[in-house]
């Protein structure tokens, strides 16, 4: 114990000494008692001589985002962990400073391991979106915006009602079992036809016709056409219910999804088929229906979206305009690497290569089957071969995101036309080569020198759309108009308005709010009998509608995401959450600001961060700590399961958790996690407001210490959110997540100051999310631009420009 009796102020230290163990450290005295020396003696055994960690002692390397003061306090309070109190006061300050500067701080880490740009291949969703847009390029208008009208175009066709028999002539009326009319005879009868737009397909004609005054009820047909709008990527189930003949085609108009033209009997049949669709797009749909002498007639068109329940397709997802088919790759790929949290395309495997082969064959066959349409030629055209060659070249250029040199064209594509048996086979092979080529699969191949316009174009298209550059981008690159900061910003802003950006942001919401937890949650039916799959689907819709509304509003204010005191509810949800809404659809419902505050108190999230019966303050607390407040948390050294049965049955959840985590080692992190989690205890396992937990009043009042050492008093969600919405670390967390998700690289690759630059710009823009996304895309696009141009870009920013790599 000789060591710490000497040296600087050590008042009260004797009292903090851990009396359980006596341990000698043999520390030097005076000037030799440096931070480094203290570290070597007291810390290195568990943390490694360079903070890298020691197997079986403390595996995690010592680095993080805590400021220095926080480190000092943490060490004094909890370290060394087998002799707490042995390193305090001046010792703690010195060793903390040493640790901080040598390897803990982000700056130190950046110095020791400068982050590199990771070469990656396309992720699964990037692959699919790129192929859809690539083939779509040969179907002009495939991605045009739909008009505002909703519903499907309907064409009704039947026979004119025969004039009613003259009552005087009933005696001569035809006998009841006269021979049925032949097709020829039928053809001679006058027809009745009319068109209209039906908001939904849900008709029960019984024994009548669609127009009982004019149209014969025995036989008639209807055809509905238009497009369906798919918001989410995933598997959609389409259901047609009818006792008559029906045929349904969705997206692929050549191969029917449902062919139930032949009806065999009077019972209503239900035909169900699934199809995988990419979100954020619309697809052509055609539904044909006919009745011939069936007793009754009816038809319903329903669907089940990836996270929805079976419902008649709502009007707002139908359009009477018919778009062209989108090529959606059906091949399944092995899952992308998610070891760092977001999906990246690092690493190749045999399975992945096999999948790219299958997918390439799928696309080659699609092109082959639609060759005339995609190349706008016929096999009898005299210049057919030239047109096919042009197609093959253009296909490769769009896929490779830049023009193909004549030499490369001749070698890889022209060559196929010379050796293949027919030009059609040459096209197929050209498509196969293109989609297996690294120039398609690895979108950003590092190269020396300044990025050119095409590099910038492909980076913008990837960050904002997860896809290939579109025509305006490629044109700008070709004309040299994609070089200056202003030009690049202008393109980014144009691209922001595209539905593909909205689709990418949906993916971001999923990632940011950890919505995977909400997949298939089941709540205890006794405690929450009304919480069924329909409610879950509605809550998800409510959340996404809210997120979309805020992000795509003028202000696009991040703070509103956290602080909004309203929820978008429909009738069903309103009832469950103690409000009332009348009429169709989701409406804005205001709440007491102390009871609802943005995403943090949205019932979908609260239900996701909860078990089937009870709340989970730890899960909620961890989410709030990391994602909303933006503090670092290491994983727990030991995973401890929460077992309700182990606790006194009279305790509230707060009391149980407090009991479970009271150990000093736990409190290192739980000192932060718990207060945040408890502040949401007024919301039960399905996010409803409650004031009682286990027959005791809920206590959501807590004190929470920030990294800087400030104590914040929280009386509930509103206080927490007020703090989080204004704190720079919270903004940093949001920016960091959005950056990683959009660009799929570490932000430090773009310079050690980049995150701070973005944060300052975020603040000055009024926390505008769209502007942030644009800044991120522009930063990623301009990687490697030489300083002078980058400096021009930074004129508006107060801090230094990101250093080029």
């Amino acid at each position, binding site marked *: 114990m000789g060591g710490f009796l000497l040296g600087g102020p050590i008042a009260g230290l004797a009292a903090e000494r851990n009396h359980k163990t006596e341990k000698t450290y043999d520390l030097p005295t005076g000037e030799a008692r440096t931070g480094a020396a203290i570290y070597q003696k007291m810390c290195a055994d568990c943390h490694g001589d360079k903070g890298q960690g020691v197997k079986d002692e403390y595996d995690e390397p010592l680095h993080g985002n805590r400021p220095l003061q926080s480190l000092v306090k943490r060490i004094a309070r909890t370290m060394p962990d087998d002799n707490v109190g042995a390193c305090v006061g001046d010792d703690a300050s010195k060793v903390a400073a040493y640790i901080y500067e040598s390897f803990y701080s982000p700056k130190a880490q950046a110095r020791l391991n400068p982050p*590199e740009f990771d*070469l990656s291949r396309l992720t699964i969703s990037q692959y699919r979106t790129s192929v859809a847009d690539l083939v779509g390029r040969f179907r002009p208008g495939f991605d045009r915006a739909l008009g505002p009208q909703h519903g499907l175009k309907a064409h009704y066709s039947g026979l004119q009602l025969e004039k009613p028999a003259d009552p005087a002539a009933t005696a001569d009326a035809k006998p009841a079992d006269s021979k*049925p009319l*032949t*097709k020829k005879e039928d053809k001679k009868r006058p027809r009745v036809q009319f068109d209209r737009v039906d908001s939904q397909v849900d008709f029960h004609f019984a024994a009548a016709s669609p127009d009982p005054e004019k149209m014969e009820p025995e036989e008639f047909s209807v055809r509905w056409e238009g497009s369906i709008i798919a918001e989410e990527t995933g598997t959609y189930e389409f259901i047609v219910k009818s006792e*008559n*003949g029906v045929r349904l085609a969705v997206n692929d108009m050549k191969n029917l999804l449902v*062919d139930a*033209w*032949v*009806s*065999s*009997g009077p019972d209503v049949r239900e035909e169900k088929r699934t199809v995988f669709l990419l979100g954020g797009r619309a697809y052509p749909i055609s539904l044909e229906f*006919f*009745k*011939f*002498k*069936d007793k009754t007639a009816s038809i319903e068109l329903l669907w089940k979206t990836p996270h929805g329940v079976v419902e008649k397709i709502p009007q707002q997802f139908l359009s009477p305009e018919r778009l062209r088919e989108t090529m959606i790759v059906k091949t399944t790929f092995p899952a992308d690497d998610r070891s760092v949290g977001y999906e990246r395309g*690092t*690493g*190749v*495997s*045999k399975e992945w*290569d*096999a999948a790219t*082969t*299958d997918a390439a*064959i799928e696309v*080659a066959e699609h092109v082959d089957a639609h060759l005339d349409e995609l190349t706008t030629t016929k*096999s009898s055209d005299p210049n057919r071969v030239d047109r096919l060659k042009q197609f093959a070249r253009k296909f490769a250029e769009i896929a490779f995101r830049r023009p193909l040199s004549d030499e490369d064209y001749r*070698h*890889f594509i022209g060559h*196929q036309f010379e*050796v*293949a*048996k*027919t030009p*059609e*086979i040459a096209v*197929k*092979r050209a498509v*196969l*080569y293109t989609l*297996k*080529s*690294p*120039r398609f699969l*690895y979108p950003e*191949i*590092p*190269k*020396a020198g300044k990025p050119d316009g095409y590099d910038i174009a492909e980076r913008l298209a990837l960050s904002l759309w997860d896809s290939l550059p579109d025509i305006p981008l490629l044109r700008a690159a070709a004309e040299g108009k994609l070089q200056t900061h202003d030009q690049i910003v202008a393109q980014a802003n144009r691209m922001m308005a595209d539905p593909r950006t909205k689709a990418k942001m949906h993916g971001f919401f999923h990632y940011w709010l950890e919505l995977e937890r909400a997949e298939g949650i089941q709540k205890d039916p006794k405690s929450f009998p009304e919480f069924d799959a329909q409610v879950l689907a509605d809550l998800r819709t409510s959340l996404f509608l809210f997120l979309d509304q805020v992000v795509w509003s003028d202000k696009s204010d991040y703070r509103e995401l956290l602080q909004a005191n309203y929820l978008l509810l429909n009738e069903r949800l309103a009832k469950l959450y103690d409000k009332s809404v009348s009429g169709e659809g989701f409406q804005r419902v205001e709440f007491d600001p102390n009871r609802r505050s943005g995403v943090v108190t949205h019932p979908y999230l609260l239900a996701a961060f909860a078990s089937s019966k009870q709340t989970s303050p730890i899960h909620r607390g961890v989410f709030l700590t990391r994602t909303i407040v933006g503090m670092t948390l290491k994983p727990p050294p030991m995973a401890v399961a929460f077992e309700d049965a182990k606790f006194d049955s009279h305790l509230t959840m707060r009391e149980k958790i407090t009991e479970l985590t009271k150990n000093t080692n736990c409190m290192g992190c739980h000192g932060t996690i718990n207060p945040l989690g408890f502040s949401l205890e007024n919301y039960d396992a399905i996010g409803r407001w409650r004031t009682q937990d286990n027959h005791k009043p809920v206590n959501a009042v807590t004190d929470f210490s920030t990294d800087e050492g400030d104590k914040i008093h929280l009386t509930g969600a509103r206080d927490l959110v007020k703090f989080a919405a204004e704190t720079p670390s919270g903004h940093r967390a949001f920016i960091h997540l959005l950056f990683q998700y959009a660009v799929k690289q570490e932000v430090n690759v773009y310079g050690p100051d980049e995150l701070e630059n973005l944060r300052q710009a975020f603040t000055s823009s009024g926390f505008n999310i769209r502007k942030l996304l644009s800044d991120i895309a522009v930063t990623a696009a301009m990687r490697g631009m030489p300083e002078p141009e980058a400096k021009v870009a930074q004129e508006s920013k107060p801090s230094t420009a990101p250093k080029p790599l």
Partner: protein
Amino acid sequence: MSTLNRRQFLRQLGVSSAALPFLAGLPSLMGASTPQRRQRVIIMFSPNGTLPNEFWPEAADELVLKPIMEPLNPFKDRTLVINGICNKIRGDGDNHMRGMSCLLTANELLPGNIRGGGGTPAGWASSISIDQEIKNFLQGQKDMRTRFGSLEFGVAVPDRADPWTRMSYAGANQPVAPIDNPYQMFGKMYGRMKDRDDLASVLDDVREDLTRVSAKLSARDKALLDQHVTIVRNLEQDLKHSDKDAKMAHPMPELDPSVELVNDNTPQISRMQIDLLVNSLANDMTRIATLQYMRSVGQAQMRWLGISEGHHSLSHEPDTNQDSYAKLKKINTWFAGELAYLAKRLAETPEPAGEGSMLDHTLIVWTNELGKGNTHALDNIPCVMIGGAPGFKMGRSVKLEKTPHNRLWLTVAHAMGHTKLDTFGKADLCAGGPLSLA
């Protein structure tokens, strides 16, 4: 390559281990010490009836073939012609619909919404067809199970599902669609092997591209691409060696990749389908197959025979129209020629794991929806058997007394070992049970 490596290799190519066409038939794998006797059945369909005077031979113990069946002469000692089989199914639907959709089910159609040229509207068949019935029986026997159980081949079948385009039914309301695209059928049988040539022609370029690109990268990035190059090289090698196993009895057929699936190429497509059919039987992928030419009321314009009128229209001309009569004769002779090609391919292929040729162990049944086109007759439906099966004495022609075709199918089922089948289709038409044709 040893047989085990082949299994691995096929799995790697994405062809599942169930898809071992080359191996499945080899006795060494089955563990059987004696060769197994395999019996097969192929039902071939052609539409619009026939010309009875040009078709039916005299009932005799020695077969003298009439003009339409002339192409079958090389096989006449293995041919059995049965006159007097009648489709006695009435009820909903017109004669064509019942001729087609009750042909293999021998049972009535369900009431429905599809209107024919006359009669009441009808739906699908109301029970299982004989090919599917026999398939289920065989798949239930451990030693007779095959990968597919049955394969339904088509030639020039229109792309719609109605009672005129379907003759196979897995059960009531469950039509089974034939595959008339040889490339699609090839893909079904051989998986990704169908793309072998296309892939082989591009993988070299892909590897070159990868090498070029990786040359300019940092060491860390290069490692990723090098891994990729290795994987591609392995795929190339696997594809190259896929056909070289000497143990393979029946190699994957070579399909001409450039045949456009249009009407005028029908003869070529027919031969491609027959080759695939023989290949599937040789590799024991199935023991039951159907081969459907066109559909009931087929209107094919057989320009390859110099005929531009639709088949169905011709079939409705009176017998006195000599021009149509001659054309119908040509058409039906062409169908007989395709049957002859099928028989020839089976005859020249040795029976794997057995004795004699495959034809010795296969019963081909050529039939039709109608007896005669212009009368829509459902009596005396063409029935020509070629090959060999237990219980059939070949090389002759017999005339039966207006026999319901239920009994014909019972006989075929019994020949395939399904001897517990007492009735098939409409039960009261099965009086007398299987026919005695031995």
